[in-house]
């Protein structure tokens, strides 16, 4: 935040940076060949709906948005709320490129419907390890970080850091570890 915004206490929300999400398609080879992790064909976009007050309008727009996505992409897209009051748009597609494209489409459609600042993260699931691996893409930061939940709200930090080292060359990885937020009990 600039000095002016600090002086005047003008906290603003950062707009979504969605384009770096495509970097994931080049990291896939490393994930599959070197690490033995296969894309599970599932991803999700996480955002915070504006307000209960805008709910009716948001509801209509969301339906409209899902229709647009359904027309343009072959992937299956479903909606789910969670106990934090966030909305998940779950994308399922066995073709990895299509999966990424649809996630990007969903995110940019949300942005063009005025939800750009409410976009929090996109999540991609990979299987093959002891626990499922989730690659989280933070829209505020335009970077990825790994998330490996294990057991009861714990995460496998050792493996996450190892993945960071291995993926760093191909993926924009969030360097500030204090921003690697967790997404426990995620619906994919």
């Amino acid at each position, binding site marked *: *935040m600039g000095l002016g*915004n*600090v*002086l*005047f*206490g*003008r*906290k*603003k*929300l*950062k707009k979504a940076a969605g384009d770096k999400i495509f970097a994931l398609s080049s990291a896939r080879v490393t994930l599959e060949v070197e690490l033995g992790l296969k894309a599970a064909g599932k991803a999700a976009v996480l955002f*915070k*709906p*504006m*307000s*209960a*007050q*805008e709910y009716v*309008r948001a509801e*209509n*727009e969301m339906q*409209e948005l899902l229709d647009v996505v359904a027309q343009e992409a072959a992937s299956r897209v479903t909606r789910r709320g969670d*106990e*934090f*009051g*966030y909305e998940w748009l779950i994308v399922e597609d066995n073709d990895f490129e299509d999966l990424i494209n649809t996630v990007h489409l969903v995110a940019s459609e949300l942005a063009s*419907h*005025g939800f*750009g*600042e*409410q976009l*929090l*993260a996109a999540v991609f699931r990979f299987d093959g390890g002891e626990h499922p691996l989730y690659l989280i893409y*933070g829209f*505020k*930061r335009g970077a990825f970080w790994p998330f490996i939940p294990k057991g009861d*709200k*714990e995460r496998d930090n050792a493996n996450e850091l190892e993945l960071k080292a291995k993926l760093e060359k191909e993926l924009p990885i969030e360097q*500030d570890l*204090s*921003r690697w*937020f*967790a997404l*426990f009990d995620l619906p994919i």
Partner: protein
Amino acid sequence: MASTPASRISLMERKAYGRDFGLSLRMGMTMFVLGLVYVAFFIALVQFTGVGIFGIVLIIGILSFVQFFTSDKIALLASGAKVVEREQAPELHDMVERLAAMADLPKPRVAVIPTDVPNAFATGRSQKKSVVAVTEGLWNRLEPQEVEGVIAHELTHIANRDVMVMTIASFFAMVAAMLARFGLYGGMFGGGRDRSGGTPVWLIMFVVSIVTYVISYVLMMMLSRYREYAADRGAALITGTPEYLMSALQKIASRISQIPQRDLREVAGMNAFFIVPTNVKRGFAELFMTHPPLEKRLARLAAISREMGRPVEP
């Protein structure tokens, strides 16, 4: 609602609610006047006392530097807050993490204050060194979305670097307070010398310091109240749901006034930090409060809520 051009336009407009020009203007004026008072005070210092005075300024500089660097530890100690790890409070950590991500802040440390009075504060010299503390009462008595509103308010304080701004704003007020005290001692022990037979220097400095202190204190409190409004606004942006912060503020305020004074003294020193202070006064006394009165905050939040879309009953 179909996607007519009109509804598209209203969607574009929705992005503009992040600013409150009037609030920025008032904040700017307050800081400007505070700056003027300090410059005048500084000139008076040089005029009447000479270079010797800078020893005191330096000492207070160091003191306020130390205070700034230990602000998190001081606040945690004073409030009895304990930093909790993820295992101890997983839901709280989840909530803070997501909101911090939404606000594009590094995750602050999370602390819990073992008291049933619902309240919360944030402190720390920088965004990286910040702490968000909530009381057990806040977590237990409020709905999750209300707690989110409160935490988002605290995160906005961190984003706006309120600890730094208020430390800088209070620096010369501290100098003035110290000099008033020294001036008084100087006078009592006969340390002041006459200059060309006029009023003794210590008396002039004493009066100047007192006047500076009173004016700058009122201005600082004003600035603090404006920054509370700014934090409320930021919370509305981060959560997208100002109505939950409104109900949270109401619940916190009503809890605080219900509880007998005896319990309140435990946390009274922390008022400037808390989201809702424990000592609420009105009228003239409002000038000396760190926080705006509840009804004014609710009115502002309702206005933001209207800006965002739907009118909310006040």
